[in-house]
């Protein structure tokens, strides 16, 4: 999943060996998993690890708070002392977050079967109320620490049902939960980790008939579709569309692949009064009688995104099987036959978790629509050079600053294809670089006459060596690839190295399963190759591409 394989240490006051075994059995695991010594949470989190290590910290509230422990034994707790104990735990976690790549922190749980009388939820003395306050207090204390990711363990226990807690395993092995809980926890942890490393779903391709609305529009007419109104199925389709609209606002793009007459389908989308989604909500539409596998592939090609970032939803199992066969990397979830379950099915998929929201996320549909216009304009020009000039591209480079920090950190975390090393800088590491003139980082914004692609590129240099500058990072969003922005970033790197008095620039390419586009640039760039190292003598100028304008801001101007 990541170019640099990391460790995940499981830290707990109970036995997590069963959980470790389940994680190790997952084929898509991005970590080497190890288990910290049992019930040594403070020691395990205090030992400074390498920054390649993440920690999964699962504690029981009674081990964090003696006041909560008292409450479990029917003694009146002192809530303020309990919150002070939570403060101490939060302090420990925040220190640990500075030393780790990421911390994953399941929420605390109380056994629902434990009963504490009619006042168990009273604010002042109720046991369950106390735990809710402790949990909220911890959330408030950790708010803003971006590499601590809290995980909702309630979902895992619900998934396991009445057998979630295992007293037998507890007394035999100090394992409080059944493996069904750990399976759900592994699903969730991998989904969150996947999202953080750029593997969340970015595009949903949707069928129309009996998927986005009830009925066959070509047979029934748009006026007779099941959509909204006093109709259980109609209501469920509206709920599904609302969910999709919400996902679109979070940056997930929507597209249509439907076997229909295009004009008939578009009329329904435009005219049906209960339609939540309209034509402008979709970045691409293939409404014809062609093969759906080919149509989905066509959409993926048009948008230039990885197939693993794409999900296909269709009520027809034959079409689902076809797309699975044609595009094995596309996620094709099983879809229920009961239409009333559509919305819940979509909402339960663990593929949409988002970390840091950025301006670019919510504008993604707009950005890709601009890209579609840009690609269409290509046909008006006989050669690439002329077309690139016609775009009027402006690239703005500036040193990393506070305003761009969140987006840069996010881009490091999510970019897989054009990424020199796929190294995921922690927030602390990146902040340290902001203060280190010998390891500068620049961000690149790109705009043209079709729109503003936003902050899409990162260049990092290491200037410590007396004779050379090393390109530590060369990262570019695929949405602006192929427009000479990547060559411009090399130009900036080499110009800056010369300015710093270095004789040469080196780039060490670290291959992953996905970052060949970066290698392709290095191969065509003219840099001299020795194995995976590419070198340029700064006595020679690396020309800036003439098809775009470069605007340098800050001290590198």
């Amino acid at each position, binding site marked *: 999943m990541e170019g640099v394989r990391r460790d995940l240490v499981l830290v707990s006051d109970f036995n997590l060996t*069963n959980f470790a*075994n389940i994680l190790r*059995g997952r084929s898509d695991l991005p970590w080497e998993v190890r288990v910290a010594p049992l019930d040594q949470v403070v020691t395990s989190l205090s030992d400074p690890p390498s920054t390649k290590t993440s920690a999964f910290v699962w504690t029981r509230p009674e081990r964090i708070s003696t006041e909560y422990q008292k409450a479990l034994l029917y003694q009146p707790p002192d809530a303020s002392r309990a919150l002070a104990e939570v403060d101490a735990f939060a302090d420990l976690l925040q220190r640990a977050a500075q030393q780790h790549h990421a911390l994953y922190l399941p929420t605390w749980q109380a056994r629902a079967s434990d009963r504490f009388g009619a006042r168990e939820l009273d604010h002042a003395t109720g046991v369950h109320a106390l735990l809710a306050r402790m949990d909220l207090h911890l959330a408030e204390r950790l708010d803003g620490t971006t590499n601590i990711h809290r995980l909702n363990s309630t979902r895992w226990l619900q998934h396991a049902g009445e*057998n979630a807690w*295992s007293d*037998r395993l507890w007394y*035999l*092995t100090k394992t409080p939960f059944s493996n069904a809980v*750990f399976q759900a926890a592994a699903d969730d942890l991998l989904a969150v980790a996947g999202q953080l490393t750029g593997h969340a779903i970015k595009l949903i391709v949707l069928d129309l008939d009996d998927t986005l609305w009830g009925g066959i529009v070509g047979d029934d007419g748009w006026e007779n579709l099941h959509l909204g109104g006093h109709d259980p199925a109609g209501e469920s389709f509206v709920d599904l569309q609302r969910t999709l609209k919400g996902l679109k606002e979070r940056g997930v793009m929507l597209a249509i692949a439907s076997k229909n007459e295009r004009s008939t389908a578009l009329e329904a989308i435009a005219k049906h009064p209960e339609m939540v989604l309209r034509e402008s909500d979709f970045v691409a539409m293939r409404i014809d009688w062609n093969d759906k596998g080919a149509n989905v592939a066509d959409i993926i090609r048009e948008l230039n995104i990885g197939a693993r970032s794409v999900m296909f939803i269709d009520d027809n199992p034959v079409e689902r099987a076809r797309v699975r066969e044609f595009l094995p990397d596309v996620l094709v979830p099983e879809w229920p036959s009961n239409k009333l379950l559509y919305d819940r099915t979509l909402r339960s998929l663990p593929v949409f978790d988002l970390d840091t929201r950025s301006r670019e996320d919510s504008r993604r549909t707009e950005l890709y629509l601009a890209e579609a216009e840009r690609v269409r304009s290509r046909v008006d020009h006989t050669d690439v050079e002329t077309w690139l000039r016609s775009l009027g591209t402006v690239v703005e480079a500036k040193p990393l600053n506070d305003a761009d920090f969140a987006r840069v950190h996010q881009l490091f975390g999510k970019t897989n294809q054009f990424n020199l090393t796929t190294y995921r800088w922690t927030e602390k590491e990146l902040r340290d670089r902001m203060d280190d003139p010998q390891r500068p980082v620049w961000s690149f914004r790109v705009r043209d006459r079709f729109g503003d692609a936003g902050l899409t590129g990162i260049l990092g240099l290491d200037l410590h060596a007396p004779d050379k500058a090393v390109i530590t990072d060369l990262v570019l969003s695929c949405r602006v690839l192929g427009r000479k922005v990547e060559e411009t970033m090399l130009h900036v790197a080499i110009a800056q190295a010369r300015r710093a008095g270095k004789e040469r620039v080196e780039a060490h390419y670290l291959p992953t399963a996905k970052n060949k586009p970066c290698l392709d640039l290095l191969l065509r760039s003219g840099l001299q190759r020795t194995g995976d190292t590419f070198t340029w003598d700064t006595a020679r100028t690396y020309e800036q591409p003439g098809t775009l304008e470069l605007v340098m801001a800050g001290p590198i101007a």
Partner: protein
Amino acid sequence: MPSPDAIEELTRAVLARLNDDLPAADRFPTDPSTPILGDGGVLDSLGVANFIVGMEEAVERAFGAPVSLSDQDLMGLFAESTVTVRSFAAFLSNRLNT
């Protein structure tokens, strides 16, 4: 009451379920002659605990009869030093039928 064959099938199903929760390299055979407990047993101490808890739950689900294995020294119940899938099933069948 459950036959020895039915118990053996249930035992193998529980072991297969344990295998599902292990990395591929750590999985073990579940045929009737596989030693599971005692000398040469394929289960480590955590595996033994998972197994007997899994058996208690599975027996109760399948036959509606509670059986207690986890609250005593399991190996103390066997005359042999090695317990296979088949000998465990025979022991449990006998216990459930008496």
